[in-house]
Each structure stands twice: as C-alpha cells, then as structure tokens.
C-alpha cells in the first residue's frame, strides 16, 4: 500500500493544489524530493528482498534488509514531517510576488515545530503497532491457540507501550507549548478558549458556539488549561475572540478531535501501565478480564493518529501555509463538479480497499502464525498476508 498511496500524494499536489505548488514548490518540492530519493526507494526496493528473498540471501543480509526497510520508513517520516511542519511554522525563506524562495535550508528543514511533530508522530506509529500486537496476542490467549506466540506478543507490546505511551504525553505537552508560541489561535480552538483576558479552563466537555463566541454545557477543570500551557495557575494565553471570525479555524472540529485523541491516548497509557503492573505481579496471562478488553483495542492508535492530524491540519485553517498562503488561494483551476466526482471515486476505491484489507487481515489473524515460535527456519510464510491463503 505504501507505494500506491505515495504515488497518489506526489501527483495530487499538482492536480488539486496547483497554486500551492507554484507558491511554495521551491521550498516544499525538495523536501518531498529528498523523501523519495533517500527513503522511498530504499523502502520499496528492500521490501522486495524482505518478502521474497528469504531463500535467496544469507541470513545477515535478510536481517539487514529488515533494518533498511525500518530506516527507510523512519526517514520517510522525517522528510514528510519536515514538509508538513514547515507549512505550520514556515521560516528560512523570502517572499517575492507571492512565491516563496528558500534562504536557509537548515532553518527550513529543522523549522520550529519539526522536532516536536517528528517525535510525536514516530512515537504514535510505534504505539499504534504496539496496540495491534497487544490485541492479537490477547486474542490468541483468550482463544487458547498459539499460546507461546501470544505470550511473546503480549510481553513485547507491553514493554514497548508502557514506556512509549507515557512518553507520548510528555512529547504532546511540549508540542502544545510550542504550538502556543507559533500558532496561538490553534491552541485557543483546541481549548475552546474565547477570552484571552481570563485564565483558561480545561473543558472535559463543551459545545463551542462559533456564532455567539462562547461555550454551552461546559464541564471544566478551572484554570487547568493555563496550568498545562503556561505552567502557572493564572497564566494568560490568547483567546479566539482576539481575531475576527474569518481568521479562526473550525472550532468544534479542532476541539472535539483533540478530545478524541487525548481520551484515546490516556486510555492507552492506563492500559499499558495496567499490563505492566499485571506482568510484574506475574498474573498477566491469567487476567482474562484484561485480555478481553485488550483484544478489542487494536484500533486505538489509528483513531488517535487520525484525530491528531485533524487537529493540526484543521487547526491551521484558514491557512494552508501559516500566515503565508490561504487554503482558498492554493487550489487548482479545476471545476468543482470534476473535483466532487473524483473525490467520490476515491471514497469508493478506498472503501473497497480497506473493507477487503480488514477482512483478509482478520482471516490471517484467526489462522495464526505458521511454524513454531522456537524458530522453524524456512517453513514459515515469508510474506505475512499470504498466510491467509486457503
């Protein structure tokens, strides 16, 4: 799937965002280009060795291929996050006739929000996978099949997530403080904070009314948002009312997406720490209530990641490149009906792809790993999805 979605991305900058490409192509282009050359090829080519080369290469080269695929994927994340972060916190360029010209590549690549975003996303990717492994392992132990594999999966997943899930909270906190410095209105939307003259409460729930400029049905922890963001009880930070409505992001979307991400994230921390606690008490594999819950948690990471991206992308609106280019000025000269039609096609196509994908993956999981966990040499299936055959 990596390569086909990568192709789509590298063409849609032009098909749907041609004026974006002209305005900031000088800056964004090379970041994408470095991603393709340094990472994409590495990943796509050595994936072939990893999937089909088991009987053709010596073991050390096989392991090296796996490492190279991992490095390639991480470098992909590096460049893509750099490009996206530059759209959030653009620096290192000069603007002439509406076109950005690069002035300092190091400043562009390592722009102010990049380290936080890169760490946050890479960690999120590990957590997502960790919870999938955790859920599958729990499923095996409940079913009483593949017990040894299930235990290994559980131990590896809990060891990983018990460290990374709490770490994600720390990274997220630092990322939030960085965002407050560079995109204060995004933070105001996340917190549904309207009046900058008052300290910010943290709303567990609220219904932001964008016309009236305040919240209904507030359920809040007083001054908690100020404490988190400024580390002072009475610290002040800008409110949504400090800018005209046309300069605000869609508040409800940002506000609720953030709460979905945070809620799922907090649950992941609790689940990982509980797993570690049960492991320490040596009752992990017998705690069926815990395994039953975890068997259903495979989707947690995916939801948190998508919700997080909705927060950061919709929170940047009405800008596509913060304070440089408006989203409305970035589109292609293509009729609306054409775009609506092709969008519908993409929805249908991706719907089919994911429906079948989930169906086959579930069948694969139900069938379980082939060969013993002790290592059955060349007999187990090299290509994961092919095990679902028959």
């Amino acid at each position, binding site marked *: 799937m990596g*390569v*086909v*979605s990568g*192709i*789509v991305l*590298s*063409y849609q*900058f*032009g*098909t749907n965002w*041609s*004026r974006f*490409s*002209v305005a900031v*192509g*000088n*800056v*964004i*282009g*090379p970041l*994408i*280009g*470095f*991603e*393709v*050359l*340094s990472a*994409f*090829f*590495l990943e796509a*080519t050595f*994936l*072939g*060795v990893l*999937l*089909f*080369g088991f009987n*053709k*290469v010596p073991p050390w080269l096989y392991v090296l291929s796996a490492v190279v695929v991992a490095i390639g994927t991480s470098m992909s994340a590096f460049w893509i996050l750099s490009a996206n972060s530059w759209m959030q916190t653009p620096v290192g360029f000069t603007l002439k006739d509406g076109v950005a*010209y*690069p002035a300092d*590549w190091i400043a562009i690549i390592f722009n102010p929000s990049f380290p936080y975003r890169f760490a946050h996303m890479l960690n999120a990717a590990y957590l997502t996978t960790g919870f999938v492994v955790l859920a599958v392992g729990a499923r095996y132990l409940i079913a009483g099949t593949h017990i040894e594999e299930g235990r290994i999966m559980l131990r590896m997943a809990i060891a990983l997530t018990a460290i990374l899930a709490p770490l994600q909270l720390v990274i997220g906190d630092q990322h939030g403080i960085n965002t407050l410095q560079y995109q204060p209105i995004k933070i105001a939307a996340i917190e549904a904070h309207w009046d900058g003259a008052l300290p910010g409460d943290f709303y567990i729930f609220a219904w932001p009314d964008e016309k009236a400029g305040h919240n209904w049905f507030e359920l809040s922890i007083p001054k908690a948002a100020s404490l988190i963001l400024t580390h002072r009880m009475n610290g002040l930070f800008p409110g949504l009312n400090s800018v005209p409505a046309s300069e605000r992001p869609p508040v409800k979307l940002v506000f609720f997406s953030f709460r979905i991400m945070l809620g799922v994230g907090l649950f992941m921390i609790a689940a990982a720490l509980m797993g570690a606690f049960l492991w320490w008490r040596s009752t992990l594999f017998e705690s069926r209530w815990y395994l039953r819950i975890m068997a259903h948690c495979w989707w947690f990471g995916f939801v948190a990641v998508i919700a997080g991206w909705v927060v950061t992308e919709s929170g940047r609106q009405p800008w596509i490149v913060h304070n440089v280019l408006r989203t409305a000025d970035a589109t*292609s*000269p*293509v*009729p609306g009906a*054409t775009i609506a039609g*092709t969008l519908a*096609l993409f929805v249908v*196509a991706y719907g089919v*792809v994911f429906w*079948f*994908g989930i169906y*086959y993956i579930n*069948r*694969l999981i139900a069938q379980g790993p082939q060969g013993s966990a002790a290592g059955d040499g060349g007999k187990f*299936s090299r290509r994961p*999805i*092919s095990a679902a*055959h028959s």
Partner: protein
Amino acid sequence: MEWYLPPIWAAVIGIAVAMYVILDGFDLGIGILFPFAQSETERDQMMRSIAPFWDGNETWLVLGGAGLLVAFPRAYAVVMPAFYLPVIIMLLALVFRGIAFEFRTVSRSKTWWSFAFIAGSTLAAFAQGVILGGLVQGVAVRDGGYAGGSFDWATPFALFCGLALVAGYALLGATWLVMKCEGAVADRARAHAKIALAAVLVCMAVVSLWTPLAEPRIAARWFSLPNFYFLWPVPSVTALVAFAIWHWLERGRDVPPFLAAIALFLLGYLGLVISNFPYLVPPSLTIWDTAAAPASQIFMLFGTLLLLPFVLGYVVFVYWLFRGKVREGESYH
C-alpha cells in the same frame, strides 16, 4: 538565473521517466496480457515473475512526479490540472492494481482480483499514453496557469497514443515473460510478443507521420536542414531494432528480445524528446520558463547526485538477486 540548471534537471527527470516507462512498463504489460492466459495457474506464474520488482518500479513514477514539482513547479502546476481526469484515473487504476497483487493471492476466488489487475494495469497504461499524447499536442496556458477545460485532453490523437502505449507495454511484458518464464507461458508470450511488436510498429509509424503533419514546429525540427542529416539515423535504427526483436523471437532466444524491446522504447522516447525540446509544456512553456528557484534546484541536485547512484546500485542488486527463470515449484510469496 543559472541557465545550465534547467537542462540538467530536464535530463534527471527524463531519466526517471525513462526508467519508469521501461520498468513499470513491463509489469503493467503483464496485466495487459493477463486476460490471454489459459488458467489462474498460468497467471500465478506471470505474477510471480514480477512480484519482487513492481513496488520499486512504481517508485520511479513517484520520482517523476516529485521531480517535476522540485525542478519545474510551474510546469507541474499546469500539467496536472490540464490532465486532471487522466491523472486521477491513472492513480486509481494503480491503486486497484497494487492491491490486486496482494489480495489475489489470499482470496478464495482469484477471478475478481485478476479482473482488477487487468483493468487497473490496462487503464493506467492507457491514461499515461493519453497524457503523453495530450502534452505533445499542446496545453492552453494563460498567466502561468492552465486555461482549458476538463476534457481538452480528449482528442483523437491523445486517445490513439493511449492505445499505442498499451501495445508498447504489452510488448515489454511479453518479452519479459519470454525471458523469465518457461513452458506454455513462455511459448504463448512469444506469440503475443510478435503481435504486440506489429501493433507497436504501426503505432510508431502513425505517430511519426501525425505529429509533423499536425505541428509545424515538429516538422521543422525533423525535416529542415541540417537537422535532417543528424536525425535520419533515429528512424533507421528503430527499424533495425524492430527487425532484431522479430528475428530473435523467431530464433527462440530468451533474453535479447526483452533488451531490444527496451531499446525500441528508448528510441521512441528519444524521438519525442527531439520533437519537443526545449518545451516542457508545448507550445508555450520551456524548461527555463518553468524552472524552480536556482537555490532549490541546486540543493536538490546535490541530493540527487549523492543518492541516485545508490538507488541505481541497489535496484541493480535486486534484479541480479532475483535473476533467472521463475521455477514452477517455487511458491508465490
């Protein structure tokens, strides 16, 4: 403006596109030939011959798109909206074709995914040909942006180019199968290769006559003096190569037909470059009109010169690793 940067970049992107057309050409060609296989077992064998490669092959298309954005953002921003529908159709076709690779092997009934693979491969090839043909015909540009409608690309010439590329990829795919397979699959591919070769030659002849007749600038490029003295070897060598493919197919050779089919493609490609250089978006935008800022081109050129040799190196390594015939007994995946 550093005048020498755009030609260097045009060469880099030209290489990426050539790599793509040849490499993904043969694996799209397998999809185009899929309906003519006699059984799903034969189709398994055909797919097995390209399984380790197709992922890397399609990455050249990503490099082509990203390279255009990096080096010629103004051309990228005109070409993509101009060919909006063919580009989107190509992307969706490639998505279906890519997942058909995975799902066909795990599905209980292979028929549907075989169909998705056939439709995706053929449609992607056709759309690429349409884009190429439409580009040669020219794109309406005003104020540096695309100024035409959603269906300007749908001309008889562009649609003909779509069919021509389907035939071309079928030739690459068939000669690849001759090289990589044995038994019934290889025998049938040998027959298909001859049919595809005949079709490709007809298409090349038609395009070679059609373009100079329709576009005076292309006629002037080829038939004015002294150009003609330098350029007449191109069609002559093309004819020789075509004869060589036929000859080697007849003689039962396995590897030379594929290599000669690549040469045939490169010659056709060279013909297009000669016809259109220095225009990137005929008839108005040259490589200099559409170039990115020199700072961007230099930065990325540095990266390309550093990284592209590595990329080429490990691509060669993987082809070497999976060299030789695909054996009957080996399991797919």
